[in-house]
């Protein structure tokens, strides 16, 4: 066991002595960056022993500078190392490498240094790095060990042999330094800038095999300053290094540096694209189906620790598709496990909803509804092409990784098609659904200090700003507060931005300083005030996507709601579409506002206008849709019986009919404080 700290201090002493042994001048050809590390850190163009000594002293005897100078002199005297070794890499080649890094065709850099105990283990590590689109540099005996295993090296294989000695590992850093100067705008001599570039932007890891001398250990250990995780595969003892085995070295290094593999194509025998999302699979086109009331089926996405989720793993428990009878309904459980450093338990239901989109992206797979109500079909056409259940799993695992790269590091998918096992797993799932409902249901606007905006619709409604709170979903009904939060985390420059609600201006109408400031800015100065819980005073602006419109009916001292599906004329004398044309486009229209269906049963709806008792009219279909949840809520508020006092088109078509009906029903709005 080698103690790294002891070795490093002895290595530094040796390096200091060797720096005195520099004699002649030296220079690399084909670069404008002199000795790149020295140049980037100190701004000194080092070409002779005196300049070398100056740079070395300036950087407090940094072992990287020492190695760079010593190797430059050695190369000057002995010449470039022979093929296949590259030695110092010219600027033109580096420009291309940098291109691939920015471009994303390589996602990070790795250095393998030292003498692996087993060539096969090194070969395995290289294969894994290749598969993960890392560009790997090799220094020392690892190169010959790989050659013995028949591993091909070279730029085309993303394995670059820098040189035959560990010493050559210093080229790895001169590459990073030059990329920083070429692509990162780092000015030579600005050491602070270089270091922050290396730490924040350079996605580099170092894997250390046994056999390093004290000087070489000093070099490798010095790379920690650059933010490179040092993964030890040898007998090195350091609390700053990561100990690993050949099996997990790459994963642990990449995890420590936060390097994520992005997936580009999904290897399944059917097309997969949002273009297929709207298709349906009819009974006669379907090969098999799951759920839809014909067989037990459910879906559940949960997060786990990184160690418990093997990325990309797809398991099918029970019969595969070829063991199912054509036209049959089969039991199904879709269980997705995800892991990621930024993942939170709150995101589970939001991600789970994406199963619906993703399955529908498949050319021959179809999905409706959610949780334990799902209904999934697979078409004959794609089953004939060889699509199996496991391929739907691959599709899901890949799509989740592709669409949520910042969030998820690993996704695994399990399908259960065995009836008994599905039923057993469903019990657990239902518990999770209940917990989630409780969590979301219990979430109040007063529990959080941050709301989220949505300006997605500014495309056509230039000054529209939706403010989304736990109790007030976006007016389109498609984005909840949690969705807003997750969308912001995933895309920090996107259409959903956090709004600090700030000081309360009016608790009842839901007006806040922070919200007003945000709305003013996001509406480009057009809207100064916004009350979240009022239709009458400073209501939210409307784009055009609202599920429903709430509007005042001064004649009956109340507020009515009409949903998009209702085609008839409302007591306001206007149809939904006429109303929508009047209030949409991003304007604020006191007395009118666009809302989602779910907001109607929120306790905040009409809070600023005297309470839910203001509600006088809704289309029957909307009433039916909300009935159970709405009456339950009203009961709790001590308003049992109120639901039946709300008129619909069967009770009242015109405002005159409505006034008569409300009078007869004893509707509370009639005796409330005048609306206007």
């Amino acid at each position, binding site marked *: 066991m080698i103690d790294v700290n002891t070795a490093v201090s002895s290595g530094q002493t040796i390096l200091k002595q060797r720096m005195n042994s520099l004699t002649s001048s030296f220079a690399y050809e084909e670069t404008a960056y002199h000795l790149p590390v020295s140049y980037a850190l100190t701004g000194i163009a080092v070409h002779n022993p005196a300049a070398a000594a100056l740079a070395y002293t300036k950087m407090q005897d940094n072992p990287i500078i020492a190695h760079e100078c010593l190797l430059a002199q050695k190369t000057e005297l002995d010449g470039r190392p022979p093929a296949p070794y590259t030695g110092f890499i010219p600027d033109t080649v580096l*420009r*291309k490498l*940098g*291109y*691939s*890094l*920015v*471009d*994303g*065709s390589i996602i990070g850099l790795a250095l393998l240094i030292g003498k692996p105990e087993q060539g096969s283990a090194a070969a395995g590590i290289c294969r894994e790095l290749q598969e993960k689109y890392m560009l790997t540099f090799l220094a020392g005996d690892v190169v010959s060990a790989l050659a013995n295993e028949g591993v091909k090296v070279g730029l085309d294989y993303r394995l670059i042999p820098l040189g035959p000695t560990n010493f050559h590992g210093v080229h790895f850093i001169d590459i990073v330094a030059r990329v920083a100067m*070429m*692509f*990162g*705008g780092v000015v030579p001599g600005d050491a602070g800038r270089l270091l922050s570039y290396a730490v924040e932007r350079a996605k580099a890891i170092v894997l250390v095999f046994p056999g390093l001398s004290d000087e070489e250990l000093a070099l490798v250990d010095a790379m920690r300053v650059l933010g490179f995780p040092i993964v030890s595969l040898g007998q090195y003892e350091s609390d700053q290094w990561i100990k690993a085995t050949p099996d997990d070295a790459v994963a642990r290094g990449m995890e420590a540096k936060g390097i994520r593999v992005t997936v580009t194509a999904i290897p399944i025998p059917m097309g997969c694209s949002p273009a297929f999302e709207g298709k349906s699979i009819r009974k006669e086109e379907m090969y098999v189906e799951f759920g839809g009331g014909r067989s037990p089926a459910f879906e559940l996405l949960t997060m786990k620790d990184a160690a418990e989720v093997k990325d990309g793993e797809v398991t099918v428990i029970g019969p595969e598709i070829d063991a199912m009878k054509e036209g049959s309904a089969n039991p199904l459980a879709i269980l997705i496990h995800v892991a990621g450093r930024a993942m939170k338990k709150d995101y589970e239901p939001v991600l789970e909803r994406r199963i619906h989109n993703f399955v529908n992206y498949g050319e021959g797979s179809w999905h409706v509804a959610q949780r334990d109500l799902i209904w999934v079909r697979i078409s004959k056409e794609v089953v004939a092409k060889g699509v199996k259940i496991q391929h739907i799993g691959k599709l899901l695992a890949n799509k989740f990784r592709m669409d949520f790269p910042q969030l998820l590091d690993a996704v695994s998918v399990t399908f259960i098609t065995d009836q008994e096992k599905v039923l057993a797993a469903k019990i657990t799932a239902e518990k999770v659904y209940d917990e989630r409902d409780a969590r979301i249901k219990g979430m109040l606007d007063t529990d959080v200090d941050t709301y989220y905006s949505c*300006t997605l619709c*500014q*495309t056509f409604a*230039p000054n529209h700003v939706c403010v989304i709170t736990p109790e007030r979903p976006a007016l389109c009904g498609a984005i909840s507060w949690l969705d807003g939060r997750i969308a912001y985390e995933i*895309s920090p*420059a*996107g*259409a959903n931005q956090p709004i600090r609600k700030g000081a309360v201006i009016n608790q009842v109408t839901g007006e806040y300083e922070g919200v007003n400031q945000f709305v003013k800015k996001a509406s*480009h100065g057009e809207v100064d005030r916004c009350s979240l819980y009022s239709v009458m005073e400073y209501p939210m602006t409307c784009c055009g996507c609202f599920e429903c419109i709430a509007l005042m009916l001064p004649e009956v001292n109340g507020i009515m709601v009409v949903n998009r599906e209702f085609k008839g004329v409302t007591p306001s004398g206007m149809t939904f579409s006429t109303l929508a044309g009047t209030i949409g486009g991003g304007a604020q229209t006191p007395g009118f506002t666009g809302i989602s269906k779910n907001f109607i049963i929120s306790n905040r709806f009409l809070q600023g206008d005297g309470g839910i008792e203001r509600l006088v009219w809704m289309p029957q279909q909307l009433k039916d849709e909300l009935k159970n949840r709405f009456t339950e809520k009203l009961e709790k508020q001590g308003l049992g019986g109120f639901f039946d006092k709300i008129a619909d088109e069967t009770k009242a078509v015109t405002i005159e009919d409505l006034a008569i009906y409300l009078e007869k029903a004893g509707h509370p709005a009639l005796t409330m404080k005048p609306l206007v």
Partner: protein
Amino acid sequence: MGLPAMFDWNSVIREVVIGATKSDGGTRAVSYRIGGGTTLPFLEKTPKPPLIAFELCDSPQYWSPIITNYCGDVVNSPAEWAKTAGSAYGADIIRLYLTSTRQRNYSDFEAVKRTVELVLDATGLPLIIEGSNEPKIDSEVFLKCGEAGQGERLLLGTAEASRYRSIAAAALAYNHSLIAQSPIDINLAKQLNILLKEIGVPQDHIVIDPYTGTLGYGFEYSYSAMERIRFSALKGDTDLAMPMICSAVDSLSVKEVRDAEPGTRDTMAVAWEFYTGIAAAAAGAEIICVRHPDSIGKLKEAFRSLAHSKVPTGGD
């Protein structure tokens, strides 16, 4: 006398350099510094009329027959075509579309490099290059474009929110500028500029393409988006303070042009390009792209007279 100062603009549009002459390490006969505006178009003390880019391609089968018929044999050689565009048509900039890369399974990336080099040799005008249409080959194509034009300060197109990395990489590696296109949406335009900033593209290397619908076919949306982009920029939003480029490519395929009598088809095509171009210039575009050679002279004449016209001050 100009208009009374009724705007309280407090910001300037960033300048972007297109093309490098010998003194800047390139081989262009001329280079342009676009942007720099401090108020709305044509209201500057010394108005800078938009530049006109002539669009051509290296595989004319993908081009409108109106243009290929009009231009004749020259369309079969992008180098000759580019030369003619400068000398005979009077273009300020050449915009080369690498339509050859649209063939299925395209893989001849050396040819991309050759084409760019030939066009650079044939004309002294600054170059805009439109790379591939296919994300799979972006990486190779833009690498070659970037390399071939090293030192020439090209304008590379077209970055979108879903695919900008290769173009950004080529711009960074070889010091070119790039076109950032968003679908008629000020917020998406801003978002893309932020993404480009994050990847390291300097903001004075970005030109905004707001996406230009053709007059009568959605141009009013483009106009509105451009107006808002420019307002925000002049009010201090630095993420939007870039020059804009407009290319109403659909002008040649709208019904009125397509169905025009053969004898009037050119006139109709030019009319559509011309009026869309004028409107785009009024909305603030610094570069107007056209495909019909006859559109160039007409636009230039119009810009000249706009720049020298007396602006009524109102009230008298």
